[in-house]
């Protein structure tokens, strides 16, 4: 009869708290639809690794972690799918929009300074990359740097990406006047040739890799996915990358990240602080983009709506849509979507570049 209760008695309160956190992640994924593709596998994995004497922790989840996350493979494969999903058309029509993507990475470097007050240099650098608002980049950078907080960083990155509709609007309203939010930006669609669409991912890969070699894999896999999409002779591969590959990797990524969600690693004051710093990163990213747009307006004849600067964070496509909706709320005839989506995809490129810069500063 002892077999019935022996393992039950081995439960510690910390493990029960972690199982509750796992259930909370599943609840948020299903009920609130917060990044369900990642939070649900992570939540379930958290339950698996916090059962006393769980064979999942020493067996399959550990194997998956070492096969796909410890060596960055899963985030990079996911980037192929993401690259295949992105249409750089709006950005190619107006390349200047990319500057907003650069400005909106300010949160990463501000958070680096904040986090360094509490953490070691390596952990501060890993935490700062939550501001990339890009899950695969956050996981890859934290892993390459060897941070012990990969689990908490992943939870923060994906949770705040899901919370972008709540985080960004108050910051944008606080930093802009109604007059600024009413600025109209007519969209003039420039024709973009097929050759331009094909050359773009190749040129970006060469430029970024040549300057920041630490970002070669990140930018290379993202742009490889985009090249598959744009070449138009690999439609079947493009569709597979966008759907099957991205879905499969997301399942494995979510459940293997939970390898770091044991009570001993997650349940400490450090985790609360990381969640707080992640929020700071998203707020300062948003502020950086908006303030940069306002700064440019000081010199430009044709003013830009400063709200589009906020779309420079990489959370695609939520951030672009939020800016568009805020524009419509102020003026039902103000269509900012193409501009904000252009800025949003530029944020995707800029966040990968920022990840490479962090690696070049603090990597081995």
């Amino acid at each position, binding site marked *: 009869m002892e077999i019935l209760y022996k393992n039950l008695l081995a439960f*510690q*309160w*910390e493990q029960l708290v972690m199982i509750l956190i796992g259930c909370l992640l599943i609840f948020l994924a299903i009920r609130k639809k917060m990044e369900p593709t990642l939070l649900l596998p992570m939540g379930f994995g958290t339950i698996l690794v916090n059962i006393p004497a769980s064979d999942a922790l020493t067996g399959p989840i550990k194997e998956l972690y070492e096969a796909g996350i410890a060596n960055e493979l899963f985030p990079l494969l996911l980037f192929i799918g993401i690259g295949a999903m992105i249409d750089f058309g709006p*950005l*190619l029509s107006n*390349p*200047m929009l*990319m*500057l907003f*993507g*650069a400005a909106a*990475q*300010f949160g*990463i*470097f*501000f958070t*680096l*300074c*904040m986090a*360094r*007050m*509490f*953490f*070691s240099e390596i952990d*501060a650098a890993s935490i700062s990359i939550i501001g990339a608002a890009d899950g695969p980049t956050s996981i890859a950078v934290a892993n390459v740097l060897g941070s012990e907080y990969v689990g908490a960083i992943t939870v923060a990155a994906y949770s705040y990406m899901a919370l972008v509709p709540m985080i960004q609007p108050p910051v944008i309203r606080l930093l802009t006047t109604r007059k600024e939010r009413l600025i109209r930006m007519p969209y003039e669609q*420039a*024709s*973009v*040739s097929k*050759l*331009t669409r094909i*050359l*773009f991912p190749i*040129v*970006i890969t060469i*430029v*970024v890799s040549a*300057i*920041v070699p630490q970002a070669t894999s990140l930018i290379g896999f993202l742009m490889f996915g985009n090249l598959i999409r744009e070449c138009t002779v690999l439609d079947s591969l493009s569709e597979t990358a966008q759907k099957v590959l991205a879905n499969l990797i997301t399942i494995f990524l979510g459940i293997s990240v939970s390898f770091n969600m044991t*009570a*001993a690693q997650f*349940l*400490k*004051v*450090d985790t*609360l*602080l990381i969640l707080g710093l992640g929020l700071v990163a998203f707020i300062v990213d948003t502020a950086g983009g908006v303030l940069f747009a306002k700064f440019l307006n000081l010199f430009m004849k044709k003013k830009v709506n400063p709200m589009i600067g906020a779309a420079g964070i990489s959370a695609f496509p939520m951030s672009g849509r939020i800016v568009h909706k805020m524009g419509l709320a102020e003026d039902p005839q103000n269509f900012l979507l193409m501009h904000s989506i252009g800025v949003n995809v*530029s944020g995707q*490129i*800029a966040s990968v*570049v*920022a990840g490479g*810069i*962090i690696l070049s*500063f603090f990597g081995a």
Partner: protein
Amino acid sequence: MMNLFSLLFGGFYALSASGNAETTLTFEPGNFVDMLGYMGKGMLVIFVIIGIIVVATLLINRLFSRKK
């Protein structure tokens, strides 16, 4: 400043200490200033790279745009 930090996080420290979890947190405000150099260099590098990409994209657009 340190007292404020202790006041805010003291409870969490006690919670951590009561369980198996260990914390390696410190509080050194001076480190913020030390990292400002990285902030400046990081933002400069990112704007330079994005600037090069913008110029390259404008060139590609000009060279290979559809003829009307």
